[in-house]
């Protein structure tokens, strides 16, 4: 099958990683949010980890052109 699953997983992790990391950056020092996570900015850390995994998956994925759609599709 012509789909390398690393591409969608990599894309999703990169996207969610960037989102969480930016959210983490904008909420640095927010006691109200992070008191429950023991004052650790867990959004930033999780976001960065996801970003690294996402970029790694995208970098090692095999890219191939999808077959053209036929008329009956």
């Amino acid at each position, binding site marked *: *099958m012509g789909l390398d699953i690393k591409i969608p997983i990599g894309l999703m992790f990169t996207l969610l990683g960037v989102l969480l990391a930016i959210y983490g950056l904008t909420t640095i020092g927010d006691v109200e949010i992070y008191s429950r996570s023991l004052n650790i900015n867990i959004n930033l850390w999780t976001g960065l980890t996801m970003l690294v995994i996402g970029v790694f998956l995208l970098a090692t994925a095999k890219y191939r052109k*999808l*077959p053209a759609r036929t008329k009956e599709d």
Partner: protein
Amino acid sequence: MEISFNLTWIDYTIMIVYFAFVIGIGWVLKRYMRSASDFLEAGRSIPAWVTGLAFIATNLGALEVIGMAANGAKYGLMTVHFYFIGAIPGMILLGIFMMPFYYGSKARSVPEYLKLRFDEKTRGFNAFSFAVMTIFASGISMYALAMLMEVLLGWNFNFSLMISAIIVLIYVYLGGLSSAIYNEVLQFFLIVIGFAPLVILGLINIGGWDGLKEALINPAVANGLEGNAYMHSWKNTGSPGSNPMGVGWFGVVMGLGLVLGCGYWCINFLVVQRAMAANSMSAARRTPLIGALPKMFIPYLVIIPGMIAIALTYMPDSGFQLPVKGDSLDYDKAIPMLLGKYFPTGVLGLGLTALMASFMSGMAGNVTAFNTVWTYDIYQSYINPDKSDKHYLRVGQLTTIFGVIVSIGTAYMARFFNNIMDFLQLVFAFINAPLFATFVLGMFWKRATGHGAFYGLVSGTLAAAIHHGLTAPEGSHMLIKGGWLGNVVHYYPSEMAQNFWTATYAFTACFLVTIIISVTTKQLKTDDQLTGLVYALTPRIKEEGVPWYRSPEILAIIVGVIAIAFTIYWW
């Protein structure tokens, strides 16, 4: 630190991104769905690492995530038996010895293998019971997810049920088994990244491994056990009464290891189907072995949160308490409650998405297995044979819709008649317990006959029912827990112990009856017909020119060594 689930825009965004990706994968795969085999068997074209991850991810559904965390809270580290005894040996057995017959026989499903090896009635018995069982399992997944969302987030039950059903329906309808398998890999990654921060925060909070060890003395002593009872897997299994599970070592090895573990991993079409979708015999054999590698680390992800939850519950100043249900704690809430305790908005959305992903992978796994068994083993065999391939492709797609609708129905049944579900699960347990004996004899003893297999199965199921009817776990009141034959001849220290022994008796009965009937009946299959189905009549596979790390045998040794190392480490 109170437990609350205040979701904000970022949490909803994460959920929506996840929904978009799973449906997107189905949509991309749609163009490859040209034949029934593409849809129902993934065209046997998927690389081993993908099927390997899907192999364990499809099982990483509600039962494992919620259930193993609950077991971690109830039984402590003894829960690792479900991995190192209850899963790894079965996965090695499947990869090394049994996969060649499944994949090499060109059977398209586990019931079809039974037809080729034994006869029509054995296949029919297995196909119908599997089809019903799997659709109920899918419904229970949906029900559990919708219940959880209702309790935690205050979401409407019908809304959560419909959302999860429709998303699974769309991506399975579009891309069939391939779509389910690819999404299981995505779900696997998401489950790991969603729960890992929970384990890390929990361990930091409780003072690391040593802190956990100390905190677990209280619950152990409160339950009348030695202080270290929750921190060992084998040490206290000398007698059933001295460990939280109430099972001795023989019960663990026989009941869980041989019968339930191997019986699940080697013959349940839900997981075997993933391996059969691999792109070569070698990839199919490597599938369970590749899956076994991450499988051995999942205890960190699901059992440790359960142990943290029970430790916090017994800690006076933790402010955390597992809710009470009936006369015990509601252990199933361990993971959801910890999510609410530790996760702030942001990762909370990720954690909840991971939870949904685990339920959906379980549902989709059941739906795809149901599709294949229904289309090939029931529809094509008994209802409408000799149609074109396009026809069966269409039937497979429509079965997806039908399967999801029936699952929704069973989800509502579970909501309104709780006891019916318990009863059905019990019946399925009776049907499943002896099956492994049938497969072992079928694959490794060429004299086993169709009549032997069928009556062996029936007597095994009966033996399970009778054993369950004559015994009961201590302190139980309900008939569903056992003793319904009126006269309880033996009380087990726990329900788990009763389960293990029910399975052991069922297996033994099936094994003996199959042998006895086989030697007294005529083998109707010729050696020619059995080639590729039985060990003695199948040429050994020689894999030449394969690098060492792709050899299933080498992989199995690596898996075995790691499993032994873990066993010693968790002793």
